[in-house]
């Protein structure tokens, strides 16, 4: 009897903890949606900030974040996919592959603020690109590189070996097999990984603090050497350092809602694709 009682107490605690985690998520989401929904309007989404960021909208920040997403994917996608192809197709279980995997893991564990420091030292100062979209894109691109490599590698692993041997049997060489058979088969899952990376990039603040983000810049960028505003940095700025915090709060809630909607939609899309094209 006693051990039955212990069991049911323990299990109820676990159930409550499980509910608690869902509760925390709902609390955060609910709080931001409830407070932010009132700020969302056509004007908020498509005009620039006005009157010390207490009025107007966040259009430049949305555009800036889109620029950074595009730029960082241009950096991370080709390098990440090539790196994964090398790992999975060329050095399957050698010592080199193991070493590279360890390094990729380690890079994945480096805090994002270190990427910011590194990006500032290398791209902004040493390469003399200044605070610019290109410096920010490279910094963010390197940040998500481990994620892109890992997801691409898993996608490649899911391609059955019989596909490869079948291709060889037809007289194709290794490169043709990769290009015509392996990559097309793995493509949906590679895409899923890419979308996850987009979700990560759109929410990162620390790496762009010193490489691209502008405090207030109402005009849209015209080239890759321009500074831009970005959603996460904008949220940070208007929630901590405005001159009139009370008046900017609605703007902050609205920005948080837009940011969280963007990130969660991207993650849900990735989850949907994953379910559709196979588990990763």
């Amino acid at each position: 009897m006693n051990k039955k009682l212990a069991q049911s107490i323990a299990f109820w605690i676990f159930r409550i903890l499980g509910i608690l985690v869902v509760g925390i998520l709902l609390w955060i989401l609910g709080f931001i949606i409830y407070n932010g929904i009132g700020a969302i309007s056509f004007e908020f989404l498509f005009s620039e900030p006005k009157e010390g960021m207490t009025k107007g909208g966040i259009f430049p920040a949305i555009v800036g974040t889109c620029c950074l997403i595009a730029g960082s994917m241009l950096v991370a996608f080709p390098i990440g996919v090539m790196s994964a192809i090398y790992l999975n197709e060329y050095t399957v279980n050698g010592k080199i592959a193991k070493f590279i995997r360890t390094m990729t893991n380690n890079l994945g564990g480096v805090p994002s603020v270190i990427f910011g420091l590194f990006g500032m030292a290398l791209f902004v100062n040493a390469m003399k690109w200044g605070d610019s979209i290109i410096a920010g894109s490279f910094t963010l691109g390197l940040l998500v590189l481990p994620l892109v490599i890992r997801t691409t590698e898993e996608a490649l692993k899911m391609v059955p070996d019989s596909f490869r041997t079948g291709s060889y049997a037809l007289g194709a060489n290794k490169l043709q097999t990769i290009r015509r058979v392996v990559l097309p088969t793995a493509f949906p899952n590679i895409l899923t990984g890419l979308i996850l990376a987009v979700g990560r990039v759109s929410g990162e603040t620390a790496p762009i603090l010193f490489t691209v983000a502008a405090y207030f810049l109402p005009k849209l960028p015209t080239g890759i050497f321009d500074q831009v505003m970005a959603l996460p940095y904008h949220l940070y700025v208007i929630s901590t350092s405005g001159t009139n915090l009370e008046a900017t709060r609605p703007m902050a809630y609205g920005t948080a809602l837009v940011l969280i909607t963007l990130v969660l939609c991207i993650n849900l899309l990735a989850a949907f694709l994953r379910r559709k094209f196979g588990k990763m």
Partner: protein
Amino acid sequence: MRRFIEKIVENILRLSGAVTTIIILLMVVFLFKEGFGLFNNPVVERGHVLCVNASNKIAYLNSKEIKLIFDGEIENWNKLGGEDMAIEIFRFNEIFSRYSEEEFGNDYEKLPEKLGEVISSTPGIIAFIPGQYMPSSMPKVKALADEKIGGADFFGGKEWIPTSVPSPQFGVLPLVLGTLLVSFIAILIALPLGLGVAVYLSELAKDRVRKILKPAVELLAGIPSVVYGFFGLVVLVPLVQRALNLPVGETAFTGSLVLAIMALPTIITVAEDAMRSTPSAMREASLALGATHWQTIYRVIIPYASSGISAAVILGIGRAVGETMAVLMVTGNAAVMPTSLFAPIRTIPAAIAAELGEAPVGGAHYQALFMLGCILFIITLVMSIASELISKRDPGKGV
């Protein structure tokens, strides 16, 4: 020709395979190159000198002593091993109230001479002046030796005041301890919670519940840290302040709460994976011996998964240590030695994020922030290697 192209492609692939290794190497080079530049800086603000009267026996002062003198906390030279003589602080600007404009000459060419006069005539003086106006020809003026910032000042210093004049204080202890305090408390909060949820997910939850709980955990992991920070700022900060009746709600504890929520997904996912990998033979053997499901969980499954769980904890700490924005927004950012969990503190990443924008590129403050980056880089690298080693260990050993 085709062979040739193939060779080129293969080499490009090989190069991109090495890219993460190259990035890590570049990081080490850039962080450490900038960071170690700090130790080439003099303790006194660059371009300035401290002068004393030549009769003074003191030949050099360390950065802490300089700060105490200029804060007025050391008032006599005998406290520093000199003669019994009151210290008279002289800042450069004061020269303009002692002499009229005309006395300096048209191009201020007589400025060094006037400075020299002041220093020569005051035995207990310590003067903080720009190096270019140093009255080096005057026999009764002595410049203090040009000490460099030392490793002990940096790693053992208890004060982080990078803007202090004349001698900026770069002691990292408050920041390091602040970071460790916030992270450890966060894990203490997150571990029981996360472990419970992991047990629930891997052992108890029905498929229907799992289908809700798993995505919820993933979504929690996907929320950007700045949103957590914002949530912490507008919800948790006032809550902590009111609940605990504190003067400010921005405390180390608030930071730990936010970090605990952020570390949950990592702990839950890794621990659940470890528990699921318990061989069913062990589980069934335990049940066959008459143990209840709960006894099986805490006597068999948790010990078996202990290495995976430790890996999860270390990974969680690593994440928490490096987390920037959320902590920056809710901990109050006071760079003081942490004395209480319920007082503001500042962490290493928060210091970098908050101060780098104001630090002139290439200056001592800038380099000190890179040095902080090096410390953070090493801490997180050690954590991720440790978690990898532990999770690779034979899982049966913990039983």
